[in-house]
């Protein structure tokens, strides 16, 4: 019997408790930490303080006592320097302050609110949102969500003004006067320190594999005694991770390969079979043709928001695979090759020195080139193009790329609620630090192929082909869920706000001119947001 994983970490302190009383026993009772098979909750209470949260440490261990000692010394840096996914709330009743700290790897998102005379902290946006008596919708942030902005730069806000998000490696302090302060715990100077490239390509690649070996060993240690899964496609990243997992726990892990005739450009099962044969791996083929976006709503024309505008209905493929891993195989933690693409850009110093400028260039130019104005309406384009939006962003230095961090920050509910913890060893800061020392001779052309061609003992020749874009897979939701989408878009809140071209989208869908609909990822998120916005009442806040 699998435990109920639907509950999230949730702490709510009413003003009375934080303004006058500050009684540890009472405050401790206001922290809800659901029990799980993994990760285990941390909960320590004394007369003077409360320490609660979750921590998965991949580079060793931290006992509860050590964690409390770190909190009492305010030695947050010791915590966030670790290769770890964590979120910790520490309440010091003598000092009358609440501290919240997030780990540098971003595996736990953390949302907080000071609305309705309460301090509310949770790993779930929807849990906090559900408690609000009033919501103000931030148009700028709505546009950012439509554009998957968190992949370009970490977010410290949500679309709802009352709910803030604490980025990775950041400390939030709330005092008895309810004054809040957020402080990035990694300095910009640390991230831009010059590195010495390896003198030989072979030396670099060997060190990268040796580091990956140590990192995967640490992750397996953190998930000791748990049932492990590992995702395997025909690409390099998941192959490397599976190869290493298999070296350590030969025959004890379950490997999964998602496949569909519509997805051969992404995962070629013949290549996977050859790779498995080479390394003695048995993989389970999971047919995912019917797990397209909004497919779980296929029995009707109405969908009910589950409260999370990022993961609701848009990630049926991940929900479906994780649920199967959990229910059919009892998997507690799964490895993936996520972070492998970003690893190959770790040597690019401009991303560390100019993270906001680079995020801006990437976001604005990519979307302009792909015709974002065919999906977004002029008002949203104006917000999208407004450089002031970027100029006011706070600097959140990180060793890890925003797009790798976004996976935990955005998709957390689907890992948490299916009970399958997601592990991304290739996004580990130890890997990033080695990859940053890539010698120049590997920079030109397809870097990943240059790098991995030096390890023919791991990869097979058939893997050295570029991956294609599986258009027929990605647009399936337009064809199969046309009526649902038209129904949602005809009541479009985003259209009414002047943010999306809902009328044009309806016309194209009704005429079945699917190939003329561009930027499917933006259309997908627009529909997800619609489902959310059509459920709750909002007051709009203009730019």
């Amino acid at each position, binding site marked *: 019997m699998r435990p109920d994983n639907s509950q999230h970490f949730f702490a709510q302190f009413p003003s009375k408790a934080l303004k006058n009383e500050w009684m540890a026993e009472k405050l401790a009772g206001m922290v809800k930490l659901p029990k799980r098979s993994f990760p285990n909750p941390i909960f320590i209470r004394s007369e003077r303080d409360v320490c609660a949260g979750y921590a998965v440490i991949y580079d060793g261990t931290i006992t509860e006592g050590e964690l409390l000692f770190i909190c009492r010394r305010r030695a947050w840096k010791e915590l966030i320097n670790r290769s770890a996914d964590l979120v910790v709330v520490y309440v010091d009743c003598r000092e009358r302050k609440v501290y919240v700290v997030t780990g540098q790897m971003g595996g736990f998102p953390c949302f907080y609110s000071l609305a309705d005379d309460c301090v509310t902290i949770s790993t779930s946006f929807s849990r906090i949102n559900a408690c609000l008596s009033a919501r103000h919708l931030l148009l700028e942030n709505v546009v950012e969500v439509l554009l998957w902005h968190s992949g370009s730069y970490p977010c410290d806000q949500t679309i709802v003004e009352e709910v803030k998000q604490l980025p990775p490696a950041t400390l939030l302090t709330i005092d008895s006067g309810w004054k809040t302060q957020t402080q990035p715990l990694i300095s*910009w100077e640390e991230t831009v320190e010059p590195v010495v490239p390896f003198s030989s390509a072979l030396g670099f690649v060997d060190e990268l594999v040796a580091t990956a070996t140590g990192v995967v060993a640490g992750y397996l240690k953190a998930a000791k005694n748990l049932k492990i899964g590992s995702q395997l496609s025909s690409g390099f990243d998941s192959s490397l991770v599976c190869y290493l997992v298999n070296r350590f726990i030969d025959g004890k892990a379950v490997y999964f390969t998602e496949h569909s005739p519509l997805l051969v450009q992404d995962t070629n099962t013949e290549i996977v079979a050859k790779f498995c044969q080479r390394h003695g791996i048995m993989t389970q083929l999971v047919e995912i043709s019917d797990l397209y976006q909004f497919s779980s709503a296929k029995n009707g024309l109405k969908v009910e928001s589950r409260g999370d505008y990022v993961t609701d209905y848009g990630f049926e493929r991940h929900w479906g695979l994780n649920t199967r891993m959990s229910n059919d195989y009892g998997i507690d933690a799964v490895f993936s090759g996520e972070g492998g693409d970003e690893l190959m850009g770790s040597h690019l110093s*401009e991303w560390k*020195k*100019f*993270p*906001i*400028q*680079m995020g*801006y*260039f990437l976001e*604005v*130019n990519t979307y*302009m080139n792909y015709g974002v104005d065919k999906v977004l309406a002029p008002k949203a384009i104006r917000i999208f*193009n407004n*450089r002031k939006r*970027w*100029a006011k*962003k*706070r*600097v959140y230095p990180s060793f890890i790329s925003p797009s790798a961090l976004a996976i935990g920050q955005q998709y957390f509910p689907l890992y948490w609620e299916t009970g399958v913890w997601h592990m991304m060893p290739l996004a580990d800061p130890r890997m990033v630090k080695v990859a940053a020392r890539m010698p120049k001779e590997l920079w030109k052309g397809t870097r990943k192929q240059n790098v991995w061609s030096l390890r023919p003992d791991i990869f097979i020749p058939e893997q050295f082909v570029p991956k294609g874009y599986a258009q027929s897979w990605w647009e399936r939701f337009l064809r199969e869920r046309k009526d649902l989408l038209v129904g949602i878009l005809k009541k479009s809140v985003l259209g009414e706000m002047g943010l999306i071209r809902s009328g044009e989208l309806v016309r194209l869908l009704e005429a079945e001119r699917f190939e003329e609909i561009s930027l499917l990822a933006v259309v997908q998120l627009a529909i997800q947001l619609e489902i959310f916005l059509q459920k709750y009442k909002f007051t709009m806040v203009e730019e």
Partner: protein
Amino acid sequence: MISRFKRKVLIMDKSYSIIKRGVLFHPELDELNDFRTVVYNWKTSITLGVNKFGYQILKIIDTSPGLMFEEVVSQISRVRGEAKWQVEGKVRYFLNKMVNESVVIEA
């Protein structure tokens, strides 16, 4: 073929503006980077480093879009406390480069 001299004369009549998708100023990061920055050629998707002198020129043009060459030279000479003749050639070289890289528009 326009001679270098003619080009030098022609540029005097030109005005300059930033192509917004290629330049972003960020007060905190600009200071951390000692006013060196990066710009982006949207046609080639190539990022280029810009030194403090270039940063100052871009900032001047960004503040007053459509500024004439002479005015750019005047303002940069004031900002840097250098004579116009000392900066004119460098401004011309930088603006040419930025126009060729589709970061600045010349009209």
